[in-house]
């Protein structure tokens, strides 16, 4: 019914995240926000960063319209950011970017990337990498804003 490659891109954990959308729903009180669009398909995400009193990242909140890959990617990102410093967050973004650019060559560090390693299969599909990156790019911009 579907190839192994397709099954590896759409792992059950990804399809579950795409449905459950952890962190979905924008909340007030953000320290920074970013709106990103993928001009080739019109997918979009708005992502906000919420900080604790010590300046660390408390959580993100997001909304958007997109495919299961971009939606799941935002959901897994939500689960990874709690209590991170900006430097730690930036390291995770960098690790995820490397995973996406790996063309399937690396598996991804589960310690660092949690469920996001399940998105590793996307890296074999050059047309879909942007989908997975969309919320991470928004996160990166929201941290800086």
């Amino acid at each position, binding site marked *: 019914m579907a190839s192994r490659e397709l099954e590896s891109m759409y792992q059950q954990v990804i*399809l579950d995240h795409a449905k459950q959308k952890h962190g979905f729903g924008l909340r007030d009180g953000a320290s920074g926000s970013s709106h990103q669009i993928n001009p080739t*398909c*019109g*997918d*979009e995400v708005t992502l906000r960063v919420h900080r604790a009193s010590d300046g660390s990242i408390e959580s993100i909140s997001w909304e958007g319209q997109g495919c*299961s*890959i971009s*939606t799941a990617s935002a959901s897994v990102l939500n689960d990874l950011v709690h209590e991170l410093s900006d430097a730690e967050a930036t390291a995770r973004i960098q690790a995820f970017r490397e995973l996406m650019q790996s063309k399937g060559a690396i598996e991804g560090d589960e310690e660092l990337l949690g469920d996001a390693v399940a998105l590793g299969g996307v890296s074999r599909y050059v047309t879909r990498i942007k*989908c997975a990156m969309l919320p991470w790019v928004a996160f990166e911009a929201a941290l800086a804003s």
Partner: protein
Amino acid sequence: MTIETNIRTGLDGAEVERIRSDFPILGRTVNGHPLVYLDSGATSQKPRQVIDVERAYYETTNSAVHRGAHTLAGEATELFEAARATVAGFVGAGEDEIVWTSNATEGINLIAYGMSNTSLGRGGAAAERFRLGAGDEIVVTELEHHANLVPWQELAFRTGATLRVIGLDDDGAIRLDEAAEVIGETTRVVAFSHVSNVLGAVNPVAELTALAHAVGALVVLDACQSAPHLPLDLHALEVDFAVFSGHKMLAPTGIGVLYGRSELLNALPPFLTGGSMITTVGLTESEFLPAPLRFEAGTQRVSQAIALAAAVDYLGAVGMDRIELWEAELGRRLVDGLTGIPGVRVLGPAAGAERVGLASFVVDGVHAHDVGQFLDDRGIAVRVGHHCAQPVHRRFGVTATTRASGYLYTTPDEIDLAVQAVADSRRFFGVV
């Protein structure tokens, strides 16, 4: 009797198989499956006859045209101009009414920039009818491809004219009642698509042209999705300008056509200027050639133009009327199949209504990208996204659709494979 049957029913299966054997790419596999190419609305595949003509040109005749006196220059110029005559004949136009462009997008920009140049004072009295300013209106429809929308938005910004839009009904048809209200004494240009690249309906060219001409407005027809798929007679349609792209009709990329009524083209100031489009060049000003050459600055796309002529010869030999009928059958089969799947909504004309061989659709609970990825896994190529037409998607409350679009080489079996894969995608993504 046989011929009459063929005319009524379009192509038959055996003929389509013969046609398919002319397209080398249709023999390849994708992800372990035979390629099912249903993205002809984006760009068509190319038959050997077209590829061979372009190769032969480079192997035997290659030279710059309309300059030089050597033998190759003469032969290349003859082929280039013969191609213009062939393409003119294919769309019911005069040779001097066919301007080569890179694609339809450049053609529309050529008109828009010619009009802006007029508005800045170029072109003299002859160009008066192209002059735009505050109080003038440009009219488009809500279903336009970005190529027939953004250049008009920009022209409006540059000239102070106002852009107005004719809306659609719920089946995606252009609302003629609204058109009659929008098009009025201040309308200077009415630009619209012959066939929507998203909805697949054939738009009412005669009615819109009559409304425009009644108020003295110019009609610009985007024929990108009609020239490849149905018989086109631009003189009979009475439009003032039309554009289409070669790569959607079996020809290479990099070649397109702007049609303009002869008297209009000869009054419109040039867009791109430079070599080859002039008569006399002084140090501070120059005089231009008549149309079409005044719009063809710089070294031209010779191989592509010749290959486009080979493409329309190929289409003409099959017969555009028969291609149209074949694709209408494909479109019916596609829409019937898709509407039979629970949770699938087809945009545009309802099942049974007239449409060309394409359909854009939404699968509830499965994003278009995911549908497309699932189909690609089976070697089925479809377009996903907004198809360069965001406003019409917004009109129907979606950001992205999946579009399957066939051509003369598409078989009913391929349509069935695509429909089955769409049904299966729902199971894969867990919405059933």
